[in-house]
């Protein structure tokens, strides 16, 4: 039987007289979307396995306001932000890890001026740190040796925050062959979901952005397209299906690949 994994809420932890070392900000996608929930669970399995004292907000978590702000609704963004900051500051949260680059970006860069000051990490940074510190050994699970993996840079992790190396360093622990797309890092291309585009029809044009981005990825003949964002995951998965390549090309989050290789996922 699989090991029971305790996921305490901050409220539960505080009422037991403890404080979390790090708050796991799950995000809306990671909480509600079936595909993204698998990424959330992989992150939690890694946190649990490495003994990180973490907690989630549970029902006290609400949208950061990112999609509202990106779509131009500053008022709604600020309402969401103020609500979240009140909760986070109330619990004296110092450190946050997010499962989504959109949450990461807005908590890190746009909450401070509203009174929310936290050390914010993206999950690929935390995972990379855990590997480097020797707390997360990549062994016992599926071997990725010889498989070709290409990493798609999420806009709000890469170009908005200059985080390019952490996810790549983590992937190097897999002993796979990391291949770069022609457009990568500073020259990366959006998956098509950024800037609240996830929530509307595409602008007129002759090609969907996710199809163009998937072409970039398929060009390097990967076995796996690695992502670090639930929205990129959706867009690239749809792109791979568009080219009917879903049998030969997987779209997986860095957290899932690492958890799989470290034998942390239930069989």
């Amino acid at each position, binding site marked *: 039987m699989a090991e029971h994994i305790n996921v305490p809420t901050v409220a539960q932890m505080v009422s037991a007289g403890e404080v979390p070392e790090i708050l796991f900000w799950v995000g*809306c996608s990671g*909480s509600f979307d079936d595909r993204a929930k698998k990424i959330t669970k992989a992150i*939690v399995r890694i946190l649990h396995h490495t003994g990180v004292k973490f907690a*989630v907000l549970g*029902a006290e978590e609400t949208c950061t306001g990112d999609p509202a702000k990106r779509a131009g609704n500053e008022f*709604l963004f600020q309402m969401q932000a103020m609500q979240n900051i009140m909760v986070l500051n109330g619990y004296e949260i110092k450190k946050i890890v997010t499962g989504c680059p959109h949450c990461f970006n807005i908590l890190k860069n746009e909450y401070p001026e509203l009174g929310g000051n936290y050390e914010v990490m993206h999950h690929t940074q935390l995972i990379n740190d855990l590997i480097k510190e020797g707390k997360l050994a990549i062994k016992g699970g599926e071997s990725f040796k010889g498989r070709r993996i290409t990493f798609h840079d999420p806009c709000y992790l890469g170009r908005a925050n200059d985080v390019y190396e952490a996810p790549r360093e983590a992937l190097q622990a897999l002993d796979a062959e990391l291949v770069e797309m022609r457009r990568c890092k500073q020259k990366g291309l959006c998956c098509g979901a950024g800037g609240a585009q996830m929530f509307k029809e595409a602008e007129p044009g002759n090609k969907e952005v996710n199809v163009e981005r998937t072409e970039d990825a398929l060009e390097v003949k990967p076995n796996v397209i690695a992502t670090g964002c639930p929205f990129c995951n959706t867009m690239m998965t749809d792109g791979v299906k568009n080219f009917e390549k879903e049998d030969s090309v997987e779209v997986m989050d860095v957290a899932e690949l690492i958890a799989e290789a470290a034998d942390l996922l239930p069989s």
Partner: protein
Amino acid sequence: MEESKSPESITSMFNNVENNGAPWAFPAADRGKWIEELNA
């Protein structure tokens, strides 16, 4: 605000954020459901 205009799907996303605390119309109470699934 009076002169604001946005595509219908964006307006609906705004409404979801405001009413459900997420860009989709999922009930806020279901936010922790994945935790139950984790140990199912």
